[in-house]
Each structure stands twice: as C-alpha cells, then as structure tokens.
C-alpha cells in the first residue's frame, strides 16, 4: 500500500549544552494511505513534536521524512505550505479557533490560501452539518462548548478534502462523553472517506478506534500493537 507518511530516524533536540534533551530519538514510522494510526504515550514523550514534524510545521530536525512519496527536505517553504493546505488537515487539543470569526468563517479559513477558495463556502456549510452543527455557522467560538469548538476545528480540517488528518490530543480538553463523540466522528471519517489519520493521544479510548497503535516513550517508539492490545 502507498505510504502517506514515511519517516526515518527522526531526531529532535531541544536545548543546548548540559540542558540538551531529545524530544525524538530516532523515530521511524510508516503510515500507509487509508490507515488510522494512534500514537500513544504519556505527556512529554514527544508525541506533539512528532506530529509537528510529520505535518511539515517543524523543519528543524534530523532524519528523513517523505510525505505522499516526496522528500520534504527538498521542498521549499511555499511548496510545503501548499502541500499542507492541499493534502493535510490538523486538529489540535486547544482547537485553535479564531475568536474574531464565526464558526463558518473558521471552517472557511483554509480557503484563504487555496486557489479555488471562493468555491468552498457551500462545502464549509455542508461540513458543519456533517459534524452536527447545522444552523450554528453564525455562532462565535465563545458561544460554543468545547465539543462544539472541536467539531468546528474538524470541519475546518476537512474543508479542502485532505488525504491526511493529523490530530494532536483531539479529545484532551473534552469530557468523556464529548470525547467519545469526537472519536466516533474520526472513526466515521476513516471508514466512510478512507481518510488517513494519525492521532497522538494519551487516552486509550481514542487509540481503540485506530487500526494500529504506536507506543512512544521518551522520544522512542517502544512497540506497535493492535488497538485491543494497547
């Protein structure tokens, strides 16, 4: 199966001298297109760092990374940005909605950087319906609950029909029930859209929805197991 993500010996160092710390220490990871991979591990084990590198947000690392078959080292900033916009969606623990924009305008934010951005409005409205926020497009983020904000963030990530969805602790700020609803949405997206998902989490509930679970400890992959064994 074609690899959407192929990382070899990723290593990321923070600090200098005696304070040096390896957030990632030789991580290699292959994610096939259409696969749902959960990266499980405790806080501070390097999960978010791994996601930042895989998403092309962090370019200061050692090792090699291919996205959709293209070595990212060879890409210029603009090319990598275009790849992120066209093919990768992000969902963050803190939602990162823009407080001055309505829910619909938040969903449409990626259209600003798309060639066909002006044609995406109808899709944005449809996505809000799909994530259970029909009729809430005009609400401001401050008027919404945590779960609703995360749904808006998911709709935003899906606006440009990405091939790869990168989720950083997407249920981390939600209660169990709301978290379960979000996990259900990811599962549905994976099944129905054949969406490739890499979710880093420390919650086993999210890992249960994945095809494969990668356990990360102190910047290293310690094992890869089936979800029921995680």
């Amino acid at each position, binding site marked *: 199966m074609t690899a959407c993500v192929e990382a070899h010996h990723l290593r990321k160092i923070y600090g200098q001298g005696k304070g040096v710390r390896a957030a990632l220490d030789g991580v290699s990871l292959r994610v096939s297109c259409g696969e749902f991979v959960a990266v499980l591990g405790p806080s501070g084990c390097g999960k978010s760092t791994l996601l930042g590198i895989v*998403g092309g947000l962090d370019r200061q690392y050692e090792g090699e990374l291919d996205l959709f078959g293209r070595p990212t080292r060879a890409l210029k900033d603009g090319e990598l940005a275009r790849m992120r916009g066209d093919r990768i969606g992000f969902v963050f623990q803190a939602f990162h909605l823009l407080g001055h924009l309505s829910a619909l305008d938040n969903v449409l934010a990626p259209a*600003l950087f798309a060639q066909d951005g002006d044609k995406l409005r109808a899709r944005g409205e449809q996505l809000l319906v799909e994530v259970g926020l029909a009729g809430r497009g005009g609400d401001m983020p401050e008027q919404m609950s945590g779960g609703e904000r995360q749904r808006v963030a998911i709709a*935003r990530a899906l606006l440009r029909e990405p091939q790869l969805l990168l989720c950083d602790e997407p249920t981390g700020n939600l209660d169990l029930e709301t978290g379960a609803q979000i996990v259900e949405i990811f599962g549905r997206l994976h099944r129905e859209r054949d969406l490739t998902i890499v979710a880093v989490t420390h919650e086993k509930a999210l890992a249960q929805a994945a095809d494969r679970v990668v356990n990360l400890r102190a910047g290293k992959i310690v094992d890869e197991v089936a979800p029921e064994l995680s």
Partner: protein
Amino acid sequence: MNLRALWQLIRVDLVRARGALVTSGFGIAAGTAALTFFLALGLGVRAVLLGEVFPIDQIELEPPKSEGGGIGGLLFGAEAPGITEDQVAALRANEHVAAVYPKLRMSFPASAGGEIFGRKIGTSEMIADGIDPALVKDDVKGDVPFEDPLAHPGKPCKETKECDAPQYCEGPSGGSGVCVDPVPVLASRYMIELYDSTIAPTHGLPPGDSLLGLAKSIIFRLWLGQSLLGKAKEGEGPRHAHARVVGISRAAIDIGITLPLETVRRWNREYSGEAAASKYSSVLIKVKSNDRVSDVIALGATMDLQPKDTRARDVSVLLTGVMALLALVAAVILLVSASNIAYTFRVLVQDRRREIALYRAIGASARDMFKWMMSLALTVGLTGGAIGVLVAWLLSLVADWLAATRLPDFPFKPESFFAFSWWLILAALGFAALFSLFGAFGPARRAGKVDPAAALATL
C-alpha cells in the same frame, strides 16, 4: 494567497485592530500632511517667484556696466553697449540654448505721459527696451500686432492731425512722415503691480489687468529726443510718437516700457547714430534645462558678457534650502511615525503568534504572512497618506483664505500660495507608503518566521 484573500484578511484586521492602526495611521497622516503642506507651499511660492518675479529658465546677459552702461549713457547716448550679431549667433549655436532674443535699449532721452480715461497721470522720464517680437508673441492681447508700426505705413503726412485717429504721423521732426498706428507697448508684471498699488488707487483708476481688456483705448504720448534731463545729441529735434499698451509680459523691462526691436533700432539710429542701432544692449537667453543655466553663463563669460540679474538663482537656492529644511522636518515626523508603526506591528505579530501559526498549518507560507503584514502596513500608510494630503489641502485653503483676507496687498500677491501637482500628491502617498512599509518590515519578517509548531503547542 491571492489579492482577494489578502484583502479579506486586511479588512478584518482594520476592524479588529482599529485602535492601534488608527494611532499608527495618525502619525503617517500628520507626517504626510506636513510634507505635502510644506512642499506645496514651497512650490507655490517658487512658482510665483521664479515664474513671474525672477524667471529661472532664462538668463539675460549684458556687457559689463562700464561699457556704455549707466544712466548717463542711457539718457544721453554714450557709446552704445555692444553685443554684436556674431555674438548672438554664437550663443544661438550653443547646445544648451533654446532661443536667444536680443534686446536694444533706447539710448536717447525721451519722456512719456498723457491721460488714461481723462485723468492726467503726469509726465516722466522714459526708459525703454526694444525686444524681439517672437519672444512675446503669446503675451499680446487682442488683434494688435507687436511690431514696428512702419511695417504697415499709411498715407504720407507732416503732422498727426492729417492722420485718422488713432494713427499719428511718424517721421523726423519737421520732415515728411507716414501715418501709422500707435507703437505697441508691453508692460511688465512688476509695472502693473506698481500701478495697482500706487497710480490706480491715487487716480481712482481700475486695476492694471482690467485695463488690458481696454488696451486699444489706452494711448499715451512719447516725447522723443528730449526729456526733463536734456536733449539728444543727434536727430532733427524732439518729436512726438503715440504708443498703446497691448499686453503684460515676463520679458518686459521691470521699470519702463518695452517696444518692438525694430522701432527702437530705428529711433536709436535717428537720435544716437548707427552704433546704437546695430549693437544690442543685452540678450535674453532661454535655456533648455534649468540646470544648464550656469553653462550658458560660463559661455557668456567667454564673450565678456555677464548676467544682468542673479536674483533668480539666489532665490532658487534660498527656496530650495528652505523647502529641503521643511521637508526634513516632515521626514522626521514620518520617521517617528514609522517607528510607531514598527512598534504597533511588533505587538500585533506577538499577539497573533498562534493565529499566524494556525494560518501556516492550514496552508499559508512564510511569504504569505510577510505579505499579509506588509499589505496591512501599506493600507495603513496609503490611508494615512491620503488623509494627510487631504488635511494639507484643507489647511492650504485656510491659509490662502487668511492671506487673502488678513494680509495687505503687495506686489505679486498670488491667489494661492500653494501648488498641488499630481506628482506631489503621488510622491506624498509614496512616502507615506514607504515609511509605513519601512516600519512594518521587521515585524513582517518576524511574522514569516513564527515557528508554527512551537506556537501551536502552547495551550
């Protein structure tokens, strides 16, 4: 990121950050207003001084004063000042010279006087220059040609009463002549201003400009060959000639009247001899470019000719210095406002680190973020600049109104002291934009360098 998306971001910013942006824009507006106001004032004053009082695109050269110059020579026909036809030809041949117009000073005693609208304005010594009609063809009003009236001679006569008015009998005193139209005369703007401020109010006459509309009716008498100071050395004796004002000209002699060259040449020959008719007293040279005037002066020096009046150059230098000083003050204001913009945008970028990082995550490049901030600064700069230009224009209207209503009339008092040209407005807007971009450049680069992974990792 296309322009539509860029404008969408900026439009939202103009609402979100209006307080900070208005503060930044205010500085730019103040600086631009000062720059535009001062430059428009400088250009306006310059246009009056160098356009009407001391024209700078032309230079008048004459022989040194000792060579037949002076009031004695002027009145009593001393050795004629000498610029020869060969020298005129040499000046015309110079690459920087656009045109050369010889002048011939009337070199014998004469006086002028008469009536205007029935009011005697007295008799006075007359100083006159003869100039090439080509130099003043655009200054002549109506259908009266500026040429020697003998070019169109009428019937023979011995006295003026034999001619049909307004013609008079032109010819040597006591001899036979021909009936001709009055000699056309040009006045200088300076003379008109002098007339407006002294003669007109004293005698209850209309202002000089309106007199020109009635030019054909203003005919006065010249008394050739004799004045209050004495008689001419040559000629058949004093006689009358008639003249009428046909226009106002920059090229006219400041104090005195200006006649067609051939008329003066003819009268000089009659009353001062051939030398006074064949050598010119000065040459007015139109230069192709203002900055080549010094080259032409240097050329004149090789022919022992010197500038008759260096006030234009002195005034030009003085005005340029004052304008530069005022522009410097405005530039300092703009520089301060640029630092204000720099501060505002630095805070803006710092406050929006996470927003910038999010945009990076959803497809924006570092260059997009740089463009966003620079475009926002450009919008602030152009808006502030446009407001500044508008304020400067409004202030100029107030200043002109104050000058018109509170300042006493003085020679060359203009209707407006300001000159707003399209290039000045474009330059002002350009400076406003430039200083805004200068201020925002550093913060915009910083926006492009925001580490998205680090910024988004913070909760």
